[in-house]
C-alpha cells in the first residue's frame, strides 16, 4: 500500500496524522480496501438502507 497515496487521501479528508500512526493502518487497509473495491464487480442492486425505515418513537 502506497503511504504517499494514503497521505493524500487523508489530507483530502481534512486530517494530518503523524506518519507512525498512519503506518499502523496500512496492514488493515492493505487487506480490506481491495476487498471493499471488489464489491463493485458484483451485480449489485440499488441501495436500500434496511428492511424498513428506522422508527423514532419520540
Amino acid at each position, binding site marked *: 500500500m502506497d503511504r504517499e497515496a*494514503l497521505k493524500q*487521501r*487523508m489530507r483530502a*479528508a*481534512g*486530517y494530518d*496524522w503523524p506518519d507512525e*500512526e498512519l503506518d*499502523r*493502518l496500512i496492514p*488493515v*487497509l492493505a487487506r*480490506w*480496501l481491495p*476487498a*471493499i*473495491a*471488489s*464489491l*463493485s464487480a*458484483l*451485480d*449489485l*442492486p*440499488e*441501495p*436500500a*438502507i*434496511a*428492511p*424498513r*425505515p*428506522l*422508527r*423514532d*418513537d*419520540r
Partner: protein
Amino acid sequence: MSELAFTSATELAARIAARTPSPRDLVDAYLDRIDAHDAKLKGFLTVCREQAVAEAGMAEKEARAGRLRGPLHGVPIGLKDLFATAGVRTTAGSRILGEWVPDRDAAVVARLKAAGAIVLGKLHMHEFAYGPEGRNAHHGDPWNPWDPRVHRIAGGSSSGSAVAVAAGLCAAALGSDTGGSIRLPSALCNLVGLKPTFGRLSTDGVVPLAWSLDHVGPMTRTAADAALLFGVMAGTPAPVLSGDIRGLRIGLLRPFFLERATPSVARAVESAASQFEALGAQVDEAAIEGVEHAAAAFLAIVWPEALAYHQRWMRSRPQDYDPTVRDRLRLGAFVSAVDHLNGQRFRQLLRARTEALLARYDLLLAPATPITASPLDQDEVVLAGERRDRRGALILYTQVFNLTGHPAVSVPCGFDPDGMPIGMQLVGRADDEGTVLRAADAYQRATDWHLRRP
C-alpha cells in the same frame, strides 16, 4: 439470596407481584453482590445505588398496595452505558463523554422504567461500542465470569451487560448491536441476546456507532425474559412462547458458518440442530450465496459512518480516545462515498438472498461466534486452518444479520473443553421476533445449558 440473583426476570416479576421478595430486598441483594464481585469483574461503570434503593422503596409500597406499574415492576436491570439516562452520567465507555449527564432517558429506557424496571446502574463497554472484545483502556477490562483464574474477554461491545447478567449482578440488561455486540458477548457468557429487526426498537437517545447498522435489545438468562423486555420496549404484547415448534422448518447454515467454526462450536450447534429435530422441527442444510463478501461490505459501511459521527472529536480531542479505537476510526477516512454506497448495495443483495431463503425456512440456524472466550491478549485465532485477527473472527457470523436487518437471537448451546460457553444464533423473518424467541424458548425448555452458573 444467591439463588434469587440467578432467577429469571420473568420469575422475579411474578414473585414480586406475590410480595416476596420485596423490590427493596432484591435491590439490596444485587448491590451486595456488586460490592462483593464487581471490583474484579468490572460489569458496572456507574452504580445508581441511592436512586435504585429509593425506587425500590417506592415499588415496594406500590406492590403492597396492589399497584403494579407494569410487567417489570421492581425488577432490577442494568443498561449499557450508551443509553441516555436522565440525571445519570452516560459515558459510552469513553473519556470524551466522561462527564455527560443527559437530561432525558433514551426512548427504550423510558419504556422499561414505565413498566416498573429499576435501573441498578450503567454497564461497562468497549469505548463508543467500537470493538467486539469489550475491552476498555480507560476503565479496565471486564472479566469473563466463566473463568475465575484466567482473565478472558467477555466479548463486546456490550461486555458489562454480559458480565453483570452472567454473574448475577442484575436480572437483565440492555445492549446495543452494530456487528454483533449483543449476540456475541451473550454467546461468550452463556446468555440469551436478542437483536431485533432493524428499526423495531427505537435508537433514540442511544450513542450511535453506525446509524444504518445499529440495533438495541435485551441480554437475559432466558428467551422468556428476552420476550418480556422486548415486548415492553416495542410497546407491544410480549411474544407468546408456546413451547411448540413442531413442523417448524429450520435451515442449518453450513457453508461459511458451520464449516469455519472451531470443532467444539460446530459440534455444539449440530447437536442443537438434532435437539430441534427431536422437538419436531424439520432441519435441512442451507446456504446464503455471496455471504463471504459480508465482512467487506460491513467495513465499507461501519468505517465511514463511525468516523462521520466522531469527526468533531477526532479533530479536537484525538488524544482522548483509546489508541486502538482511534486507529479504527481513522480507517473511515480511506473509504470513498462510492465504496460506502456499494456496501449498501451489497447489503440489499444479501438481504434479498436471505429473504429468499426465509421463504423456504421459518428460521436459519448457525453458530453465534466461531470461537469461544479467549484470554485477554490473545489477538489471533485460527479458523479452518487460517490465521485471523480475533476482532474479525468474533463478528464473522453476527455482522451478516446486521447487514440484512433480520431478527437474530444468541442462545446458550454448550461448553468447550475449557468450560467456556458456546452460543448458537437463530435468525427469523423481518418483524418475526416471535418465532425466533419461540424456538429459543422451546430449546431452553428441553436443555439446561442456560441454568449453569459460572
